[in-house]
């Protein structure tokens, strides 16, 4: 087989990263660069980083060559295209006259999603207060809490689960007025959304 492919695969073997429980967690909590959409080869890097057992292997170790293995796993392009769902969900803002739709697959972090919502609903701004972001309508001082309906029909606070899991399970998004959301908010100092994911 080609030498590059052999080297990627044997690197994975050597560092014990083969029989892994793939996790969704990012290695060490470094957020992705805003605006950067991760390609498949970057996913390979993350898998390697997140799943290594060795403590000595620092998570910021540069991953092996980013070449992908063409045609593996052997799945027809038709199937690949079918599974590449574009994930359009409705977004409702309490008090707005109509809803919007966003494609969650366009973004790779909560930060990016909120920024997009800010663009869409121009009355909103994401304010930076004490290192936590809040969504506010600055014109009348109303605060919003981003929530979403998941597969089971439950309304959840946006931000708890890793981004990718959120994309998988989110059915629709609602920006709920803070005043209504008292029950939902976790017992933290503020209602803001912590953005370190």
């Amino acid at each position, binding site marked *: 087989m080609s030498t590059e*492919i052999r080297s990627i695969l044997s690197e994975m073997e050597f560092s014990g990263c083969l029989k892994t429980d793939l996790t969704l967690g990012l290695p060490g909590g470094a957020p992705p660069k805003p605006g950067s959409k991760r390609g498949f080869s970057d996913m390979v890097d993350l898998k390697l980083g997140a799943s290594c057992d060795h403590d000595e292997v620092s998570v910021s170790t540069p991953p092996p060559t980013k070449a992908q293995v063409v045609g593996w796993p052997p799945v027809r392009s038709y199937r690949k295209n079918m599974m590449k769902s574009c994930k359009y969900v409705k977004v409702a803002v309490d008090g707005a006259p109509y809803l919007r739709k966003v494609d969650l697959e366009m973004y790779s972090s909560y930060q990016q999603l909120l920024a997009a919502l800010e663009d869409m609903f121009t009355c909103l701004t994401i304010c930076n207060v004490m290192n936590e972001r809040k969504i506010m309508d600055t014109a009348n001082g109303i605060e919003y809490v981003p929530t979403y309906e998941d597969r089971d029909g439950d309304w959840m606070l946006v931000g708890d689960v890793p981004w990718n899991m959120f994309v998988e399970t989110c059915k629709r998004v609602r920006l709920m007025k803070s005043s209504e959301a008292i029950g939902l908010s976790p017992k933290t100092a503020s209602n803001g959304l912590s953005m370190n994911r």
Partner: protein
Amino acid sequence: MCLFQSVMNYFPEEVLEHVFDFLTSHRDRNAVSLVCKSWYSVEKFSRKKVFIGNCYAVNPERLIARFPRLRSLILKGKPHFADFNLVPHDWGGHVYPWIEAMAKSRINLEELRLKRMVVSDESLKLLAKSFPNFKSLVLVSCEGFTTNGLAAIASNCKFLRELDLQENEVDDRKGHWLSCFPESCTSLVSLNFACLKGEVNAAALERLVARCRNLRSLRLNHALPLEVLQKILVQAPQLNDLGTGSFTHDPNSETFIKLKNAVKNCHSIRSLSGFLDVNGRCLPAVYPICANLTALNLSYAPGIFSNELTKLIRHCKKIERLWILDTIGDKGLGVVANTCKELQELRVFPSDLYGVGNAAVTEEGLVAISAGCPKLNSILYFCQQMTNAALITVAKNCPNFIRFRLCTLNPIVPDAATNQPLDEGFGAIVQSCKGLTRLSVSGQLTDQVFLYIGMYAEQLEMLSIAFAGDSDKGMLYVLNGCKKLKKLEIRDSPFGNMALLSDMGKYETMRSLWMSSCQVTLGACKTLAEKMPRLNVEIISENEGGAGEVEARLDDRDRVEKMYLYRTLVGPRTDAPDFVRTL
């Protein structure tokens, strides 16, 4: 001349023909035509169905000369690895010359089934115009046509019974192809357009379904919402095979309740698929028909979670063919093992194609299935990991496999428990499953596994190898041992010239050999091509630069990136693009 033959010669040809009518298998009919000249002649003129596994092994003229009264043709084009983007886009496999030749010779074509071929709108239009009794078109993994071509078929084929589009890449012009079926068309038995991306006219579809009282199989596409499905089921409760389009709605709505009632009335549905875009809470609508299902395809429904899947499957006690995603998990496969005692074929596809999630199955699921499903004979299994012990257990539990395809998501992963190669596991499979005709291996594998395959896989016809083996010996074991081998496809394995050239005559007994990213050189391929005039040895470059550039760059000692060879009666093909060089 033996007594039997002289007796047979006293039968008029009509009697012989009538006897031959009972022979449906191509192999039997081929055998019959070799007996003597008169049998050859009777068989030739009475042959209605022809199967051509490689469209470049013969040409249309020879086909028509050989079987002038053919009515039904099956053609396959590109090599199998084209499915995985290993064959450049314009490699070939065009159906147009076949349709043109048959039209010119006034063949009374009624059925055409194509796989991995390039089908242009011109071909479809010519097809629609040229064969007045045309009844059935089945296209599998084809490309090159648009909905305009489909419109031509719908408009012109007055007796069309079957239009079955499976997993094709169709350029959907969002036209009204479905509306082109005239009001007089009532003959449809099977309509499958699940692979189309665009909208169809729902009202036209409902009217079509209403007037085609013999409709038995209907597979909708993603664009059709639940409301349409509900109306169709009311019109067509006689369906045997249903592919839902999108299956998502508010479960409390009136539409949904109407759907539930419509489904309850569909007592004949035995095969169910679709669920493209699904809300898990809508699944209970199909529970009433699950008890009688023999085939279920949920492999395009990543939106169904494991627990919803298992709830559904618990209702499906008679399932014989099950296609699902690995989101089912090992536990879910345990439920399948406990519930589906009639299971014959299982396919578990990967859901995580872009490295996003973490769903996968392991050897545990496979072992559970093998233990619980005594009739299992065909499996395609994409998994996270595998062990020799598991494969040995599976081999013991299921000696009846005819197709065994295992695909580890990491192509060279060793035994998850012992870190050894998976040679022993696959060895057990081939030793136990004496009827095995198709095998795909993966994981870390040495020459040893090929020794086993050569030794035990006596019925093997198709073998797929990737990232396996240590030396030419591996390939030699297979070529020398597997007497019935028809198709061998190898990628990224260290097999070279010695293996390629050791038994050149073998390739005339096979349909084709594919080798990519191996160690064969241009010189060896040239030698092979020279010695074996009845083989086409194609060197395929990436789609850059013309043949001239290819020749300038490659010298006899250079490795060939992609080689595809196949037996043929008609020499190098005339439609090869620049980047394909037939030696």
